[in-house]
């Protein structure tokens, strides 16, 4: 909140829309070294539309922001005129515990929503990193979630409605508040994972789930990836339906659970929920590979740590190269082995966690102890990885050291590029939103 006098034309224009108390000129925060001219906290979708229309008329660059938990991703912006926070959009638009649905403003944090609905015995499935800070808008824009992805599906599977303002200042909507709905184009799908390049999300509706009762985590340890992957295949072929099925590399375990015996193994953790009979069945199907079980507080803390892996890896080692990959099931093992080899050959060590039952990995490459790496090392690693990435796989770089940022491609996707560009042109023709940072 600002107390300083507004001195610029931009500041005055934004003040006219949102009020002086919600406008900060030359704010202290920066995005990858780029200091925004003004930070603004609009109070409604209408105010956001007015800001974006003004930005269009003046060809300004707008960076949408939630809890700033994922702003290290993408290329460094050359210019940000307006850093637009959604933090005032926290209204509950609808909440019907009996219907298992909620609609909430984009600025609400994930933790706040989770706590609010837990009193009714309900679960909000997405478990992004830094959930205390991560907002609903940021969650959708980044599409980054955690280990519950295995049992509950992806954001695209349970986000049932979205309200937004397009880059050119139009107020749009997709879906609604009912769990089944095919009226109109599926705007949810377009905006999830679009990194704020198409529209500013102002609110969204979700399916909720009954809070799982009687959870248990079964941890199995393996000396290498191939044995771990063979076990994964066995679990996937079994009748079990775990909530989470997560791979941790030895380095990832060392980061998340230092001092535990898992530090020297590849582990696969399967999380089940249900009656004692159901858990007994998990035990018998998973068999002797299970080294230990976790429950209660310890278990909950473990899964929170796993969800936080991208944030912890970045914090532990700012020089790490952190990325998320999606690969077809069969290729997960190859991706892990190639990444390990390429990392080792170029002076990095590999840390990996991932929803291996869906082919979604988070990989951190840290400079090996004693290694002084140059930006060329990062570029080489990325080039080889991109070349060796299996068909149909895709990749997003979530973090890398500043000096390497300009040298490496931030995204690889099998999806037709010109079609994505056509979508960008349709919703943000003047390239107002996050210009130059992600796809375009």
């Amino acid at each position, binding site marked *: 909140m600002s107390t300083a006098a507004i001195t610029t034309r931009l500041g005055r224009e934004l003040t006219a829309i949102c009020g002086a108390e919600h406008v900060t000129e030359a704010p202290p925060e920066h995005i990858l070294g780029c200091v925004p001219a003004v930070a603004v906290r609009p109070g409604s979708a209408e105010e956001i539309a007015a800001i974006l229309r003004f930005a269009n008329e003046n060809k300004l660059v707008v960076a949408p922001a939630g809890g700033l938990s994922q702003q290290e991703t993408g290329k460094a912006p050359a210019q940000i005129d307006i850093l637009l926070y959604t933090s005032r959009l926290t209204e509950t638009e*609808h909440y*019907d515990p*009996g*219907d*298992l649905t909620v609609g909430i403003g984009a600025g609400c944090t994930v933790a706040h929503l989770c706590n609010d609905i837990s009193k009714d*015995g309900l679960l909000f499935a997405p478990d992004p990193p830094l959930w205390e800070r991560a907002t609903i808008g940021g969650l959708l824009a980044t*599409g980054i979630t955690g280990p519950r992805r295995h049992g509950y599906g992806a954001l*695209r*599977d349970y986000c049932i409605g979205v309200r937004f303002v397009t880059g050119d200042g*139009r*107020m*749009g*909507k997709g879906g*609604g508040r*009912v*769990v*089944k*709905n*095919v*009226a*109109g*184009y*599926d*705007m949810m*799908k*377009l905006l999830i*994972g*679009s990194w704020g390049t198409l529209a500013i999300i102002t609110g969204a509706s979700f399916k909720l*789930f*009954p*809070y799982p*009762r009687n959870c248990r985590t079964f941890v199995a340890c393996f000396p290498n990836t191939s044995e771990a992957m063979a076990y994964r295949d066995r679990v*996937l072929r079994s*009748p*079990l*339906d775990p909530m989470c099925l997560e791979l941790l590399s030895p380095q990832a375990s060392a980061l998340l659970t230092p001092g535990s015996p898992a530090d020297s193994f590849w582990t696969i953790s399967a999380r089940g929920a*249900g*009656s004692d009979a*159901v858990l007994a*069945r998990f035990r018998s199907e998973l068999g002797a590979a299970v080294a230990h079980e976790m429950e209660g507080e310890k278990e909950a803390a473990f899964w929170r740590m796993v969800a936080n892996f991208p944030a912890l890896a970045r914090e532990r080692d700012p020089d790490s190269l952190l990325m998320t990959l*999606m*690969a*077809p*099931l*069969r290729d997960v093992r190859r991706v892990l082995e190639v990444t390990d080899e390429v990392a080792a050959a170029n002076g990095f060590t590999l840390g990996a966690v991932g929803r291996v039952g869906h*082919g*979604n990995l988070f990989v951190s490459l840290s400079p090996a102890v004693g290694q002084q790496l140059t930006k060329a090392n990062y570029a080489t690693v990325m080039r080889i990885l991109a070349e060796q990435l299996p*068909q*149909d796989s*895709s990749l997003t770089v979530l973090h890398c050291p500043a000096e390497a940022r300009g040298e490496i491609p931030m*995204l690889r*996707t*099998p*999806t*037709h590029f010109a*079609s*994505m560009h056509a*979508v960008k042109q*349709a*919703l943000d023709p003047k390239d107002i939103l996050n210009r130059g940072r992600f796809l375009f």
Partner: protein
Amino acid sequence: MDLSVVIRELRKIAGDDAVLDRPEDLMLYEYDGGLRKSTPGAVVFPQNTQQVSAIMRLASSAKIPIVARGAGTGLSGGAICKPGGIVMPFSRMNRVLEVDVENMRAVVQPGVVNLQLSEYVSHLGLYYAPDPSSQKACTIGGNVAENSGGPHTLLHGVTVNHVTGVEVVMPDGEIVHFGGKAAESYGYDMTGFYVGTEGTVGITTAVTVKLLRKPEAVKTLLGIFESVDDAAQTVSAITAAGITPAALEMMDSWMLRAIEEYCHAGYPLDAGAALLIEVEGLREMVEEQVVAISDACLQKKAREVRVAKDEEERALLWKGRKTAFGAVGRVAPSYYTQDGVVPRGKIPAVLAHIGDVAKKHNLIIGNIFHAGDGNLHPLIMFDERDKAQFDHVLEASEDILQYCIDVGGSITGEHGVGSEKRDMMTHLFTEEELDVMASLRNAFNRDGVLNPEKLLPAPRMCREMKGPSRNPILAQEGM
């Protein structure tokens, strides 16, 4: 370009035997499962993606409307072409191209019949989950266009949740790929966006779908109730117990009688409503859920709860549900199926409203629907020879859908907007919200050649065309 020239070109592309233009042949393609009819100028059966691309280029350069067609089972008029346009059925592109067990995917041509895909992979212990009631006939390509659902989408999700990649021919004839075999792809989710665009963005020529492993245990229950209210409250009670059944279907008393007289599934003739409930998964869990669901039914005053003892009994219970539309055909010369959705707690209220609407318009309306996700299918009986009654049918439909909107629901859960509900889109979305959607459609389908007059409401089309088209076919109906 003159239609006769277009037909000659179509024959060059797809072969003489792959083009129909005689009136008696064209008649077969003037309708789908919806209400309206329109006779195309030509029908062409492509045999491969390259032919689709060439046909698309031809239609675009001639500015002739073109619509892809699966089995024509759609209930919203999605497969109906403007008069004189080209209908492109995919019955000759009906091969399963690949079954990839390791990745749990199949790659199929759009003409593959939904149920045949599940049968094709059944020996591997796999199946394709979305199961529209028309699954014996409807095609995967049509399912992708309409984002179709079915009874089992309650647990597993609709078509979009099961498609990971598509090959699409764009209006300019370019063949493009969105997604692939991975569960998701970074970059814009074009696959997710594309599914459900009702043939207005491109034409699907291959689809990569998820295959699921058959569950270890499946149990099917029939809960019989004195009133729809009790049945509806049971739906909420099951949800509150933390159970998501694989399917949770409701039939009202009228439907129960119609079905039982048709196929003798063992449904009660004198009950107020019945719930057909299926649970699946781990054996231990399924057994517990059967007990919990039976208890919930009895607590909500169920007269009786039957649990299918074996596969034969289960098949019989489902036979009733899946042949319901056939049963209705015996009772009335025609019927109109609606597809509204309401928040699940509003089911009793909306059923009461449907009863009032039936009385007001002096119509018979039966209800058979996906209660678990609040997706209603009121079936309105009529005789299409009675023009006055037909008008009442349309008014009653709109009244029901408006009620769905008023309580926070939608006008379509799984059948699509098509031509029949596009004017109601203005009740659900603002002008500006529709304008955003139109700008996306125009980004791909600028000339409006692909499936015109579908999904988005009428006035918008006129404006988008930026003045009347010079083309005589596109110029009809105020375009």
